[in-house]
């Protein structure tokens, strides 16, 4: 239930902040607008402060350097720039009834599946993800 509620909050806030609109993202990437830089900066500062204030109750995430980080981020950056959408906003756009985002979601799922197949066939390192 808490997952559903925090998901709703996250989706609603991102949507109302314009983070699901191509235009807003594109204006960030081309340095025309400060808006999303402000959003990200304040979110990061809030988490830094919160994790200090509540440090006894906070579960620090695990992040490791692995060979996939840089090439993976380059590929994600290309898709992010082209579509102005990241994985969270893609589903939020569907909620906003921009049903064309179903194409983005289909692409993400298939891209994810292709990487999974390639990873287990060719790469020796362990997979990591941000829910750890």
């Amino acid at each position, binding site marked *: 239930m808490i997952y*559903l509620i*925090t998901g*709703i*909050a*996250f*989706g*609603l*806030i991102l949507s109302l*902040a*314009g983070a699901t*609109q*191509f*235009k807003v993202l*594109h204006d960030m*990437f*081309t*340095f025309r607008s*400060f*808006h999303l830089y402000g*959003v990200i*900066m*304040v979110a990061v500062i*809030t*988490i830094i402060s919160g*994790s200090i204030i*509540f440090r006894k109750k906070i*579960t620090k*995430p695990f*992040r*490791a*350097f692995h060979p996939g980080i840089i*090439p*993976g*981020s380059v*590929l*994600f*950056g290309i*898709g992010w720039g*082209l*579509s*102005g959408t990241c*994985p*969270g906003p*893609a589903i939020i756009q569907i*909620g*906003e*009834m921009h*049903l*064309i985002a179903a*194409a983005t979601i289909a692409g993400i*799922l*298939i*891209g*994810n599946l292709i*990487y*999974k197949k390639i*990873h287990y066939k060719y790469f020796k390192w362990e*997979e990591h993800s*941000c*829910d750890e």
Partner: protein
Amino acid sequence: MLKWYIAGFLIGVTALLLNYLKGKNISASSTYSFIVDFFTKSYRKEKLWLFYFFIGMFFGGFISFMINGFKFIPHTIAGLDEIYGSNPVLKAIILFTSGLFIGFGTRMAGGCTSGHCIVGAGFLKLPSVVATLVFFLTAVATSFFIEFLLKQ
């Protein structure tokens, strides 16, 4: 639109709340990995929460749709037509191709804007900060490139 300092603060509070109450960290891209793993029968049950959070995001978007007065615009996303034109098939192909890059890239990098940029950077994790800089700079380069190529 929400003011940037309010939106940023609320995003931070949501991430902290999920961590404080459940010890979990927001990671949108992991949900796609979960769905793919589910259908290829190698999923882990303890990751089911990602899916509930994902469904929540859908309803969050739907509430925003209601707040904004039920403006039903299925064939585009704000600002997309200014770059790519109004042909919905072409836009769907571009979004699908972008999706392939996003899905492949985020699974390879192990995270996206939520996991690496907001949460990872918020907990001052160096691998996440590096990932954020790389995908951000690539997106900047891509955006200038498409503008140079396509904008009328």
